[in-house]
Structures are given as C-alpha cells and as structure tokens.
C-alpha cells in the first residue's frame, strides 16, 4: 500500500481526459453552446433595426459589426469556463494533478473554443447575408473568425481565471479582457474588409496567426497562475 506511487500514464492521457470531460459536459448542457449563437444572431438583427435596413449602408459596416458581435458573444460564454469547476470543487482537484497545470488549462480552453469559437465562425456567413455583406468575403469572415476566436478564448481565459473566485466576476471580466481583445478585432475585421475590397487578406490572417501563436505561448502560464491565485483567495 505505501510504496511510492508513480503515475503510469503521462500528461497526454490527462489532457485527453480533460478535453473529453469538458466536451461531454458542454454537450450535455446544450444551453451553454446555443446561447452565444443566439446572442450573436440577436445582436446582428439589432443593428439594421437600430441603424437602417439600407443594404448599401449595412454592407459598409458589416465586417466590423459581425466581428464585434462575435467577440461579445465569445466574451459572454467565458464566465462559465472555470466557474462551475470552482463551485463544485473539481478545480481544486485538477490543480492538484501531478501534470503541468498550463497543459490542462490549454485543454480546457480548446474545449471552450471548439464549442463556442468555431460555431460562431460557422454561423457568421449566414448572418453576413443579413447584413448584405458583399460576396466573396464570406470565406474570409469564416476563416478570420475561426482564427481570431481562438486567441479570444485564450486571452479571455486569463480574465476568467482571475475573476473565477469573485462573486460578481462577470462585469469585471469584460472590463479586464476587452482592451486586450482590440488587436485581434482590428486585424480580424481588417481581414474581412480587405476581402470586401478585394485586396489580399493573407497579411491580416498572418498577423491573426501570429497573435494566436503569442497567446498560445504565454496565456496558459498566466491562466495557471491566475487559477492558483483565485483558489487560495
């Protein structure tokens, strides 16, 4: 019984288990997956009502509106990323796993992106039609959103980890995270505008990729540190 215990399987098993668990949980609570999409569609329908249904005018602002609405929808779903784990005590347990915490955080953020970022990117072209987005830029919208929401999830997860222990963390989370979203928004909507104008969007996507690379490299450590801070209160 008391021989020292060595983990037989490495971190990969833990990461896969974490990913599987999170995807299972999110798919079982459909609400968490559907809500951001409905919010995205709703916000998009507000703008023509608020501004004007005139297609020519909408086409001009469509890239920016789509990106801002997608960004806010992604932000909406971030609050629950760690909160449910924090409330039922499993966050405390997986922080104690002998595997590197940053890796497990990456698994959690990947699960979150797969079920919020990607669906937003897939539904965006449909909403682009409603905003009379010029043809030819739907593909750019989809790719830039898919790439951009990955960075948004990573950066947002830092804010979520910092505010998970706080009672009314939701509002503070958006205050912390939105300024950090601005570069992604600039190059994301820039990509779609470039596609609309017809000029090359490779540059924009390249920079979005670079932002994602930086986020992938630095965010997990910040998330792990933030979680340890929130757990110890």
């Amino acid at each position: 019984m008391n021989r020292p215990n060595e983990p037989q399987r490495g971190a990969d098993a833990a990461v896969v288990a974490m990913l599987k668990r999170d995807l299972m949980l999110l798919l079982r609570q459909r609400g968490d997956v559907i809500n951001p999409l409905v919010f995205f569609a709703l916000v998009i329908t507000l703008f023509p009502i608020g501004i004007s249904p005139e297609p020519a005018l909408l086409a001009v602002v469509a890239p920016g509106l789509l990106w801002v609405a997608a960004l806010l929808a992604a932000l909406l779903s971030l609050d629950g990323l760690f909160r449910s784990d924090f409330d039922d005590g499993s966050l405390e347990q997986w922080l104690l796993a002998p595997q590197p915490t940053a890796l497990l955080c990456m698994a959690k953020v990947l699960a979150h992106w797969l079920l919020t970022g990607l669906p937003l990117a897939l539904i965006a072209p449909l909403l682009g039609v409603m905003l009379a987005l010029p043809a030819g830029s739907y593909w750019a919208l989809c790719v830039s959103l898919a790439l951009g929401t990955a960075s948004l999830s990573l950066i947002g997860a830092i804010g979520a980890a910092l505010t998970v222990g706080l009672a009314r963390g939701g509002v503070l989370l958006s205050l912390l995270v939105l300024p950090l979203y601005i570069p992604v928004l600039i190059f994301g909507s820039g990509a779609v505008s470039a596609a609309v104008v017809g000029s090359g969007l490779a540059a924009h996507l390249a920079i979005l990729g670079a932002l994602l690379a930086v986020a992938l490299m630095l965010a997990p450590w910040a998330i792990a540190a933030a979680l340890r801070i929130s757990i110890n209160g």
Partner: protein
Amino acid sequence: MWAFIQKLRSPKWFYAIGGKCQPWFWAAALGLIALGSVWGLAFAPADYQQGNSFRIIYVHVPTAFLAQSIFVSMAACGLAFMVWKIKLADMAASVMAPIGALMTFVALYSGAVWGVPTWGTWWIWDARLTSMLILLFLYIGVIALRRAFASLEGGARAASVLAMVGVINIPIIKYSVDWWYTLHQPASFTITGRAAMPMAMWAPLLVMVVGFYCFFIALTLTRTRSEILRREGGKRWVRELVEEGADGL
C-alpha cells in the same frame, strides 16, 4: 544585486531611505516643472502652423510618457512581488496604479483639447489618443481587479498578473492601433506626430519630462511610505518609530 533584493525585503530600510531622498525629488520636481512651464509657455517660439496651441505639447507629452512608464514600472513591481516575494514591490504597485490612471486621463484630455483648434471637435480617433484611451482602460482594469478581492494578498497577486499580461499587450495594442489608423486615414496630419523640432522647442520639453519623472518618483516614495504605515502598523519598528513623536515626513 542580491544584497539589494535582500534590503528591499525589509520595508524598514525603505522607509528610512525613502524619507531621506524624498525631499530631494520633491525639490527637483518643483524646480524643473516651474522652469519648464515658464520656458515652454512664455519663451519657446510658437509653432508656425498651430500657433500657440502648440504649447500644450509641454503638458501632453510628459503626461503621456509617464502614463506608459508607470504601467511598465507597475508590471515590474508585480514581477518582483510574484517572483521574489518582495511585499514592498506590491505596496509600490498598488500606489502607482491611481497615479498612472490620472496621468493617462490628463494626457487624453490635453491631447483632445489640443485637437480642438485644428479639427474643431473635442475627440478625434488619432492613433496615439486611441492607444492612450485603451491604456486608461487597462489601468482601470488593474485597479478594479485589485479592489475586487476580499483578501489583500489575493488582490495583490491578481493585479500583478494582470499588470504583467497588460504590459506585454501594450506594444501589440500600440502597433495594431497605429496600423489601423494609417489604414483608415493614410495621409492626414497626426496631431502628436512631430517633425524634427528646433532646439528652442524641445529643450523645455526635455525639462518638463524630467520634471514629471522626478514628480512621479517623489510621489511614489511618499505614497509607498504611507502604504507601509498602513500595512505594517502591527510591526514593532513601526510602533517605536511612531512613538518617538513626529518623525520627518
């Protein structure tokens, strides 16, 4: 270097050192800012294009520089607190945040006012002003996060992490906003972008900038010492110090 870090671990040493060199910084700040103000307002030549509204540069640039430098030094204090567990660094960081936020706000205000005579509106989406606005939101985020935690310790660590994340994002935000600005208004004249200024113009600016930095150091020393009194009240050396009667401020 290591001995210096060891010294920094004791607020007692910092309180004494701070007390000694603090008056010098206050004096330097007062002198330099007074000199710079008179020089910049009255003696420096007016700009041939903007006329005298150009003199706002002697206020806008120093506050803008300080706004950025304070965030960087706050992040450095955060790093020192998280890595070397120097409590003093966190006291300084918690004191710097409001100063930085105020400097950013004043830089924004003076930049906006500067734009009025040339553009006729109070707010223009100039690249530098937009970056400054985002920096203000970062400051507010750090301050709000520090106060949101029930425990002092938790708030300190969370704010340090956010400051470090923020300082990595500042250059990224700056370049993406500059890129965004040139994309949308390529050939316009940026208010705060200056061609080479003659010496008569930038000399007072240099004096003002150095004066503002001295002001920041003096203010941080004073406020950190007050923070030490607030946080280390229970310690013996603080009690003895206070009981000796009014010590030098």
